[in-house]
């Protein structure tokens, strides 16, 4: 274990040297003092572990040194509810690319490499091609937004995301009027994402939005949580957050964006079309065929915490109900 950590230190060093010759080191890729110290601390704690002292910390055992991110809190779009703990948010995840158990993404995502990262943009837009993440996201304009997250499995969390509105990214590509939908892919790397070795879903994981949904000010591209870069289990380095839809719409580790005229085929919809619709708006009165969506369990309320009622559009009806005027929400679930 110690050896592998030293090795990755070495690799980082080689990595930097290669970048130096290109004279292009994005500031956030340089190991900061705090990340460096964290890494030292990790090595020390590994030493402690061998002495029989257990330390449990999210990300422990995985060399995920994350940078802190500067952001300005967006009060308008933030809930006043108490956010879940960093530990809950980083150990209880659905990310089938790393396994089907809630703890699998935390346990199995250590070898995933979110840096460097590039995104392929294609389809109905004036500007298309491959772009580095820093071309897409202005790291000087990050916002913090505290959103509710409602999973289709009837549990929920409150997460302080850091990122930028998706519309700010999409506008850069000048979408054409024929771009009625936007689809997104999660990266396909079965060697780094062990869950992709089994065909439990159609890989790469694909999700999509109407262009109106994608351009909505609430739709967010997150790069961090709690002022730190995303950990691998949360969808590093960039993931969508659509707070009024069930969690599976908020696709993680995005490496492809397509502007399309037709509605994209999405992974869960292909897997079970009668259970997971394209829209997947949170709606307590439209049940999942196999379970009720009327109530949800808020993670972190402890063993005796009661379930709470689920609200239409996850409580964001004032902002998004206009998108669905005249749409039969029972038919278009």
């Amino acid at each position, binding site marked *: 274990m110690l050896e592998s950590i030293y090795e990755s230190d070495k690799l980082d060093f080689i990595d930097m040297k290669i970048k130096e010759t290109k004279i292009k080191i994005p500031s956030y890729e340089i190991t900061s003092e705090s990340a460096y110290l964290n890494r030292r601390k990790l090595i020390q704690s590994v030493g402690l572990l061998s002495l029989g002292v257990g330390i449990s910390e999210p990300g422990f055992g995985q060399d995920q040194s994350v940078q802190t991110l500067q952001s300005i809190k967006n009060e308008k779009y933030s809930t006043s509810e108490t956010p879940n703990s960093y530990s809950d948010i980083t*150990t*209880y995840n659905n990310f*089938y690319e790393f396994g089907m158990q809630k703890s699998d993404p935390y346990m199995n995502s250590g070898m995933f490499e979110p840096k460097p990262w590039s995104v392929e943009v294609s389809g109905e837009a004036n500007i298309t091609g491959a772009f580095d993440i820093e071309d897409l996201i202005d790291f000087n304009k990050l916002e913090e937004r505290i959103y509710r997250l409602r999973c289709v499995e009837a549990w929920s969390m409150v997460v302080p995301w850091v990122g930028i509105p998706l519309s700010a990214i999409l506008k850069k590509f000048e979408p054409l009027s024929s771009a009625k939908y936007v689809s997104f892919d999660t990266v396909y790397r079965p060697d780094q994402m062990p869950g992709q070795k089994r065909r439990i879903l159609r890989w790469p994981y694909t999700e999509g939005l109407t262009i109106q949904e994608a351009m909505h000010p609430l739709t967010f591209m997150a790069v961090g949580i709690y002022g730190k870069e995303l950990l691998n289990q949360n969808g590093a380095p960039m993931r969508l957050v659509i707070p009024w839809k069930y969690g599976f719409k908020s696709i993680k580790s995005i490496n492809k964006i397509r502007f399309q005229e037709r509605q994209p085929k999405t992974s869960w919809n292909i897997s*079970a079309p009668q259970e997971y619709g394209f829209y997947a708006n949170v709606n307590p009165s439209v049940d999942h065929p*196999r379970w009720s969506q009327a109530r949800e369990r808020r993670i972190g309320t402890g063993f005796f915490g009661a379930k709470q009622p689920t609200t239409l559009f996850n409580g964001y009806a004032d902002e998004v109900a206009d998108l669905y005027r005249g749409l039969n929400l029972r038919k278009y679930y």
Partner: protein
Amino acid sequence: MMLVPYFLLTLKSLGYLSGLGANPVETIIHETGLWGLRFLMLTLLLTPIAYYSKIPSINKLGKPVGLMAFFYLLNHFLTYAMIDQAGDLGVIIVDIIETPYLIVGWGGFLCLLGVASVSFKRLENWFNQNRSTISGLVYTATVLGVWHFYWQAKVIEIESLIYSIMVTVLIVWRFKISTNRSS
């Protein structure tokens, strides 16, 4: 020995072994349900094991292993009813009716409840005289249990697939043996 998973779960709920995770209620419901089903599968496996090993006394384990399965599933049901649904009977009834896999699971649990309630010492004679009814109920409970397990997941899980195949093979085997005997 069969209580080891239970003690591990108890230790976890006291905060040891890195605890029950972010969703403790779900962890307890999943773990007790899974172990209940595993012991139920073991109960059914005892008959072919005794048959092929020619050690009929293995069959005597059926009752304790079966009761152990019931013990886990009682915990499974009580955690769902009293903690997850906060003991609200009206809410529980609506939830079971609205959730198909809960109807199936509840059916299986009733079968086992019947078996467990006649397993007391005083009813020993009745228990021994109605072996075929008892084993029929245990088989039904296991089929419903596997169905319930399969049905609650978002995608097909390997463990439920293995149990489905095992249950099918066991039932076919059982029918073959009993028709062989009667002919």
